[in-house]
């Protein structure tokens, strides 16, 4: 067990960070919505899934016919990402409008909101499985549940190769993109008016209103930003795995939410830390115990962390983000 871990340490680390970056980007959506609304947005996983479908549709419509690398790859990635960002962002806003706002206005409990979230998640999953995916990709209806593949658009090459430490271009790109988006978001939340409004609402909605903040607009913006991050994750996912299906959000969503809690829910930097740590734990756990136990390892670590640090690794919440 342990010797296999040592031989695979570097590949596991690289893969863990790469996987963890995707978790981190999706975790951002969970953590932001939780910070402002105290709601576990179960349907965020479907916001991600919708983004992957949009990204894949873009690729197949453009008709990418051969593998890209270097600048061409980054350019295509940007294009796909922009579309995914827009689609995911809009989906997230729509979700807020239809599934959560009515509840908010009527003083519904968090539990009711959670059920609504689960319902919305199921609805979106099935909608895509039964109608959207078959229509978009010209498949028989049964095919809506099967994975849909993109053309092979990524020329893989090893960017860094120092002995055992080998980093492939797509894996590196994922980590870089995630960090860039995280920094951008951090700056946004700390430096702009809208960001300040978000922090204020997270801290205390009543006082924010008194200070002239438009709560509804802030909440819409929060969902939109969280959705946009999921869109970036969707584009990166499509680069790494070149396929998607109606169910792809489910497991990833649970993992991402776990990452958000691990890092400290409501904390943006916590989402990044939580995501990367979870990715590493999964890879190391697989190497040591075998891949079938990796989820168990991840959850056990979560419980242990929460037992000793009940608010997560970084702990602080959105309202206390330092400038």
């Amino acid at each position, binding site marked *: 067990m342990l010797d296999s871990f040592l031989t695979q340490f570097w590949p596991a680390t690289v893969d863990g960070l790469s996987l963890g970056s995707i978790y981190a980007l999706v975790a951002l959506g969970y953590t932001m919505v939780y910070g402002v609304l105290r709601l576990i947005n179960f349907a965020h996983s479907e916001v991600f899934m919708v983004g992957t479908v949009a990204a894949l549709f873009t690729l197949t419509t453009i008709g990418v016919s051969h593998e890209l690398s270097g600048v061409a790859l980054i350019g295509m990635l940007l294009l796909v990402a922009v579309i995914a960002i827009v689609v995911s962002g809009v989906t997230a806003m729509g979700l807020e409008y*239809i599934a959560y706002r009515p*509840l908010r206005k009527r003083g519904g409990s968090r539990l009711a909101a959670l059920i609504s979230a689960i319902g919305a998640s199921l609805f979106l999953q099935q909608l895509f499985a039964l109608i959207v995916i078959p229509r978009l990709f010209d498949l028989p209806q049964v095919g809506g549940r099967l994975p849909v593949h993109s053309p092979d658009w990524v020329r893989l090459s090893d960017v860094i190769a120092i002995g055992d430490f080998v980093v492939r271009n797509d894996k590196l790109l994922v980590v870089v993109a995630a960090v860039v988006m995280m920094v951008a978001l951090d700056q946004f939340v700390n430096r702009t008016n809208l960001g300040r409004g978000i922090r204020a609402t997270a801290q205390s909605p009543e006082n924010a209103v008194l200070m002239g903040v438009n709560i509804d607009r802030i909440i819409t913006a929060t969902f939109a930003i969280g959705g946009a991050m999921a869109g970036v994750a969707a584009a990166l996912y499509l680069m790494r795995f070149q396929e998607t299906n109606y169910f792809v959000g489910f497991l990833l969503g649970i993992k991402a939410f776990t990452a958000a809690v691990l890092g400290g829910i409501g904390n943006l930097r916590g989402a990044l830390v939580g995501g990367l740590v979870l990715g590493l734990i999964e890879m190391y756990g697989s190497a040591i115990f075998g891949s079938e136990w990796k989820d168990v390892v991840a959850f056990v670590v979560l419980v242990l962390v929460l037992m000793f640090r009940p608010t997560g690794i970084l702990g602080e919440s959105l309202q206390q983000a330092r400038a």
Partner: protein
Amino acid sequence: MNSNRSSAGILTKSRQTIGNRMQQIRDWWADAPRWARWLVYIALIIAALLLPASSIGSFMTPRSDWATVLFYPIGIYVALAIGLNVVVGYAGLLDLGYVAFFAIGGYSMAVLGTKFGWSFWEVLIVGVLLTSGSGLILGAPTLRLRGDYLAIVTLGFGEIVRISAQNTDAIGGPRGIAGIPHPPNLSDFEILGVKPLRYGLLDPRPYYYLLVLLIVLTIIFVKRLEKSRVGRAWAAIREDEDAAELMGVPTFRYKLAAFAIGASIGGAVGVVWATKVISIIPANFPFFLSATILAAVVLGGSGNIPGVILGAFLIAWLPERFRVFEDYRVLLFGAALVLMMALRPEGIWPSRRRQAELAEGTGGMGALGGEVGGPGGEVEAEARAPELER
């Protein structure tokens, strides 16, 4: 969105009319003398026992066997919902991994029944003890966490149980366990064309009667708890844990008790289910089942047993009934959940206390942030304050 203003007329008025009627019935019920209530209870039990009639079945599930469906999913979901109601509805703990206890109960029956040759009744007792023990083990480290952390941890626990079962060859691995024994035949007496104490394969009704017995006993047990000091402590914890702690309620202990009791009910249901289906695999216990039972509890009216039963019944029966929409079943289910929560978040048949809590705005479980009225929005609670003095 200004839907509140424009539809305030028709929608709110019809809601209020139905609400008024239900209030009248509930007022009557609250004042009814003991013997009247018992009459109704007995009538309900008889009705439940007579439910598997094929004449009813031809309407309820024309395309599959009604008695089988009555056992699973309907009966099982109802029983599980009653159990989860203790955790979520009474104590206000967000449990997203309830299926784990169902699994532990099922596997207890499977392992003890096949590898050690125990009979159903023996396993029932041990299974209940095992699951309540696991409830204690899960609760001890995690119940000190805040509600939403508890949600993800319980979800994780549910998955851990399933994945561990899948990875452990000693209990069958992904193959699960087959050949689980039926309960022993108690007698061959026949009534109205059925042999209710003969547990074979082709007739699901004896198992259904067994399940009804379990449900009735559970309801009696849970109702007793609700009206006792334990129930009051749970209500206090649910509404405001800090205040309860300050008032001297040992919150941790009562939360743990709720967990263990809810777990033991789930385990008992698991034992009964396993003895009928005689073969189980880890894939029988997915997260989706936890989510479904939770939806049943909330949809029905969490905290209120008749509501929870109704919710579970509908959630289990409707997809079977509308098999015509085969593919679209889950889609419609999801849409129905969203719709119901938007229109009636307290559930179809909420407990009166919960209605009161909602009237005051927080719904007891903690409200969504950001619901404070701002420019362009308003908070509309179901204000029925005067009638809720009881």
